[in-house]
């Protein structure tokens, strides 16, 4: 595709034809705020925060849906643009709860960041605000539609990524809402699969992981990239941790695998790690076999006992009287060691695992 040369804020820029003004600016380090734009989703052009001035064009076009043109002259921070962006933020804040102190999104909220950047306090308009009930009838996602800014990313993610179409815009104008049919909750809709990808793209605090509420502020989290354990796809995870506890899990954007998206288990299932059912100390049988009664033991005792019994049986009945099941859930390293253990230490090839596929 041919290249196009344009001027943004006095800077000459050459980009491929078809690039949006927004992309051209961002690729060249020029800041333009956005709320409804997401490179991975179809363009929307609704929030109008990314408006810019383009010579010869009427009004202030939205840069996210305006393609570059040869010789175009763009200004991203003219007084009219700044006035418009401030006004847009004022308007959004006029219909937004002012509970940043306790909002789970604080510190990672686009609306908060832009309000700060532009010095908008959000007190210019007093008027009607939405008063929707908090939706918290499912164990995964909390929806606070009072915080929704109607950017529609969640709708697009549900339609274009998850392809479930559980939610859409309903009603119109000031009363527009993002909702499953009949204004049901996600749970009531019986269609939502709680992949939570909507939570991940929400730029404000309208959608949040339920389990992460009150567990840690954005700036307190350590983030670890790892690989999901709940099926064979190998989705990349970004695990956020505070005080040795998982606060939340999001998709890590490995474009070759999950592209940042997840399913319900990968996103919400990590809480098994802190289940009270976890065994935290070695156990030695105290009752009849199969009865399930055990006593706690030290590692030393448990391992000595195990080593002794395996040795005895190996010596008494031969190596082939011992068998092992390795695990399709454990790491490669552990599987390698398990088969090495059986082959090199016990002396048998009796090692298998539940390789059902």
């Amino acid at each position, binding site marked *: 595709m041919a290249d196009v040369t344009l001027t943004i804020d006095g800077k000459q820029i050459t980009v491929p034809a078809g690039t949006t003004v927004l992309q051209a600016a961002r690729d060249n380090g020029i800041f333009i705020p956005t709320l409804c734009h997401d490179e991975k989703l179809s363009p929307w052009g609704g929030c109008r925060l990314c408006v810019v001035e383009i010579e010869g064009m009427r009004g202030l076009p939205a840069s996210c849906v305006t393609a570059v043109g040869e010789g175009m002259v763009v200004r991203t921070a003219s007084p009219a643009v700044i006035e418009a962006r401030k006004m847009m933020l004022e308007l959004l804040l006029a219909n937004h709860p002012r509970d940043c102190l306790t909002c789970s999104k604080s510190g990672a909220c686009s609306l908060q960041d832009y309000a700060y950047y532009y010095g908008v306090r959000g007190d210019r308009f007093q008027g009607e605000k939405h008063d929707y009930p908090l939706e918290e009838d499912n164990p995964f996602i909390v929806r606070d539609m009072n915080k929704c800014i109607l950017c529609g990313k969640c709708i697009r993610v549900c339609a274009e990524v998850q392809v479930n179409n*559980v939610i859409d815009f309903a*009603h*119109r104008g000031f009363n527009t809402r993002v909702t499953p*049919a009949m204004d049901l909750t996600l749970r009531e809709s019986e269609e939502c699969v709680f992949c939570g990808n909507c939570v991940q793209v929400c730029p404000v605090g309208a959608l949040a992981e339920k389990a992460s509420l009150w567990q840690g502020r954005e700036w307190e989290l350590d983030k670890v990239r790892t690989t999901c354990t709940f099926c064979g796809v190998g989705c990349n995870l970004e695990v956020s941790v505070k005080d040795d506890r998982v606060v939340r899990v999001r998709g890590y954007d490995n474009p070759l695998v999950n592209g940042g998206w997840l399913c319900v288990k990968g996103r919400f299932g990590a809480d098994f790690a802190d289940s009270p059912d976890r065994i935290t100390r070695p156990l030695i049988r105290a009752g009849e076999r199969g009865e399930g009664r055990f006593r706690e033991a030290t590692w030393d005792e448990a391992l000595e006992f195990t080593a002794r019994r395996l040795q005895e049986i190996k010596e008494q009945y031969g190596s082939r009287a011992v068998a092992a099941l390795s695990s399709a859930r454990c790491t490669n390293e552990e599987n390698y060691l398990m088969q090495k253990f059986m082959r090199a230490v016990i002396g048998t090839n009796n090692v298998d695992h539940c390789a059902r596929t």
Partner: protein
Amino acid sequence: MDASGNNDMNIKAKALADVLERYGGTKGALIPILQEAQEIYGYLPREIMQEIAKKLKIPFSQVYGVATFYTQFHLKPRGQNIIRICQGTACHVRGGARLLEAISKALGIGKNETTADGRFTLETVACLGSCGLAPVMMINEETYGRLTPEKIPAILEKY
């Protein structure tokens, strides 16, 4: 439900099935189908929208989004007679608001409400396009022009 009620439901279900059949695979048929379904049922019940969604392979959420976008669609049962008062500019400057007030008073209901006996539903409409006769209203398919609050009781009597 008594037998006649059942029968009525069957007739309606058959009528809807005919509508869905008639539109078959026609592109963009959702709105006309909703319009005809509303003709049949008087409003758009949840199960009917769900059925339409399934048949057209359109997400239920999208059907609901469409049904709540257009003012023509109603999700609750309505009265036998629909009064639609024009709120257009010409009617406004010629006293449309007082007309609404008068009807509202006469029927004891507000905008988008239905009388207890189910006889009337009161709605407003952006413009009926009969501005030359402002203020105007429609009851069902009938248009009334050059109205004054005084003329209202006699007109309502007819229904």
